[in-house]
C-alpha cells in the first residue's frame, strides 16, 4: 500500500526522464509528508531527507557525466524510491534478534516501557521464544502497582507452562533479586522481569528501574514501545536509556495499521537495535525484526 506521499512522489517522477535538482526538492517534500505522517520523529525526518538529498544529488551529477544524453535504464521514479528504501533499511540496522545469555547460572531480561505498551504480554512472548531455544525461563512479576498485574502474568505463565515468581511483600528491586535465587532453586536459567508501566518523568519509578539494574545486572534490557506512538518516541527512548542502559527495543501492535515510524526514529536517534516486533495478542505473535519489512511499512 503506497502512502499518498510516496504515491505522489512516484507519480510526479513518472513522466520525467531524469532526476534533477528541481524535481528532487519537490519529491523530497512529498516524502517528508509521508514520513511525518508515519510518525517518524521530526529531527530524524530532517536528517534522513538531508542524506537522501545528498545521495540523490551526487547521483544526478554522476549520471550526467556518465550518460550525457543516453537513455537511462532505470526510471527516476523507481530509482528514487529504491534510494529512499535502501537508505531506510540501512538506518534500521542489520537484523539482530540476538538476546544475550550468560553461561551460568541465571541470565536476566528486563522489560520496561510506558503504561499499556505491551510489556506483560511481551514478557510472556519472550518466555515462549526463549523456551523454544531450549532454555528454561521464569517470569518475574515485578509490577506491584497495577490491579491484577500478578494475576495477568500468572495466567500467561500457566498457558505456557512457565513458572511465575511473585512476592506480595517486597518492592520490585527485591522481587527481582529474590527471583534470581528462586530461579536457581527451581532449575531455571533465564529470569524475565515484567516491570510496571511508568512515565519517564516519574523520578521515583525511573530510579526503581535503575535500582533493579544495579542489583541484578540483566544482560538484556528491552524497551517495549507501542507502534502507534507519536513524536515523543525519541525523547522516551532517550530518557529510559539515560537511566538504564537499554540493549534493545521491541515494537508492539504492529499487526495494526500504525506505520511505526517510531522504530526508525528510536534506532536512528539512540542506536538502540530493534530486536523483535509484536504482531498480535497471542503469545506466538512475536517476530524477529526484519529491517526490510519495517522499511517498506514506514515508506508505505
Amino acid at each position, binding site marked *: 500500500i503506497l502512502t499518498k506521499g510516496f504515491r505522489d512522489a512516484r507519480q510526479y517522477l513518472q513522466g520525467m526522464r531524469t532526476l534533477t535538482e528541481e524535481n528532487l526538492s519537490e519529491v523530497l517534500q512529498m516524502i517528508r509528508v509521508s514520513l511525518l505522517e508515519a510518525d517518524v520523529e521530526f529531527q530524524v525526518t530532517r536528517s534522513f531527507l538531508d542524506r537522501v538529498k545528498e545521495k540523490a544529488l551526487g547521483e544526478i551529477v554522476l549520471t550526467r557525466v556518465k550518460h550525457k544524453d543516453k537513455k537511462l535504464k532505470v526510471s527516476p521514479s523507481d530509482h528514487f524510491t529504491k534510494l529512499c528504501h535502501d537508505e531506510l533499511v540501512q538506518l534500521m540496522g542489520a537484523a539482530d534478534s540476538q538476546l544475550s545469555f550468560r553461561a551460568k547460572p541465571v541470565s536476566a531480561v528486563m522489560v520496561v516501557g*510506558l*503504561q499499556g505498551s505491551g510489556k506483560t504480554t511481551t514478557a510472556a512472548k519472550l518466555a515462549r521464544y526463549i523456551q523454544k531455544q531450549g532454555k528454561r525461563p521464569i517470569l518475574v512479576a515485578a509490577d506491584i502497582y497495577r490491579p491484577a498485574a500478578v*494475576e495477568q502474568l500468572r495466567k*500467561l505463565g500457566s498457558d505456557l507452562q512457565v513458572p511465575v515468581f511473585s512476592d506480595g511483600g517486597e518492592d520490585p528491586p527485591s522481587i527481582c533479586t529474590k527471583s534470581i535465587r528462586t530461579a536457581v532453586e527451581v532449575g531455571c536459567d533465564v529470569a524475565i522481569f515484567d516491570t510496571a508501566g511508568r*512515565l519517564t518523568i516519574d523520578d521515583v519509578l525511573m530510579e526503581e528501574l535503575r535500582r533493579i539494574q544495579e542489583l541484578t545486572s540483566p544482560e538484556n534490557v528491552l524497551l517495549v514501545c507501542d507502534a*502507534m506512538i507519536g513524536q515523543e518516541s525519541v525523547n522516551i527512548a532517550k530518557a529510559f536509556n539515560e537511566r538504564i542502559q537499554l540493549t534493545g527495543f521491541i515494537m508492539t501492535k504492529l499487526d495494526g495499521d500504525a506505520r511505526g515510524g517510531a522504530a526508525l526514529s528510536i534506532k536512528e536517534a539512540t542506536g538502540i537495535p530493534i530486536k523483535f516486533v509484536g504482531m498480535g495478542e497471542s503469545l506466538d505473535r512475536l517476530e524477529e525484526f526484519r529491517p526490510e519489512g519495517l522499511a517498506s511499512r514506514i515508506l508505505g
Partner: protein
Amino acid sequence: FRSRRELDEGMTASLEQILVTADIGVKTAYQLLEKLTASLKRKEFDDPDAIMMRLRSLIEEMLVEVESPLRLSFGPEPLVVMVVGVNGSGKTTTIAKIAARHKAAGGKVLMVAGDTFRAAAVEQLEVWGGRIGCPVARGKEGADPSAVAFDALGRALDEGTDLVLVDTAGRLHTRVPLMEQLKKMRRTLAKKIPAAPHETLLVIDASNGQNAILQAKQFNEAVPVTGIALTKLDGTSKGGCLVGISNELGIPVRYIGIGEKMHDLRDFNARDFTAALFA
C-alpha cells in the same frame, strides 16, 4: 519590499515544528498555518507574539467546538456507557475513574467486565470495584461479552442503577471480526434497553501519533462514537492527535486522564488543553 501577506519562512518553519512535534500532524499543521495567515492583520505579520497568540486561539476555538463534558442526566432507566478503544489505551482504568466520580456524587454505578478475553481483565476490574465500593457484573471466563453485557443491564434495571459502564476488550480497528463483535455488543445492549448505549466512549492514548485519527474513524464507522476520553496526558506527549481527530470528525471530547489513580480524571477543557500544547 516584501508583501506582508505571508509568514516568513523561518516563522513558518518554527510554527510547523511546534505543531508537528506536538503530534498535530503535518497536514493539519498546514491547514492551521493557512488559516493563520488568512486571519492575521497586516501589521501582525511582524509580531511573533501576535502570531503565536492567534495560532493558539485558532486551535482553542476549534477545540471549544468539541468541549462537551458527559452530562450524566438520569432518568428512570440506567444510563449505559460502552467503552471502546485499542489495546492498552486505558479503558478499564478510565471506567474505574468515572465510576469513582459518580459514586462520590451519590450515584449508583455498575461496572461490567465485558472483556472476557484478555488474561486477568475481569480480575483487574474487580480490584477496582473493591477499591471504589462498586459492584462488577461478570460472566464466566471466555463468556460471550454481549451476553455478559445483556445480563448486566438486566441486573441494573432490577437494582435501580443510575450508571452502567461496560468495559470491552482492547482491539485494533483493523480487525474486522473484532469490530463486528463490537457492533453485536451494541445491538445486544439495545435489546435490553432500547436507548442503550447512550454513550459510546472511545478511549485514546495521548502519546499516539497519527494512527489515532485512523482509530477514531474506524471505531466511529463500526459503532457511532459519541465521546472521546484522552488518557495519559500526565506524560510528556501533548496529545496533539486530538486536534486532527477534532478537525476531521468533530466528536465530543469528554474527559482527559491524567494519571493512574481513581481521581485522575478531568472534564476536557479546551483552554487548558491548548495552553498545555504550547507549554
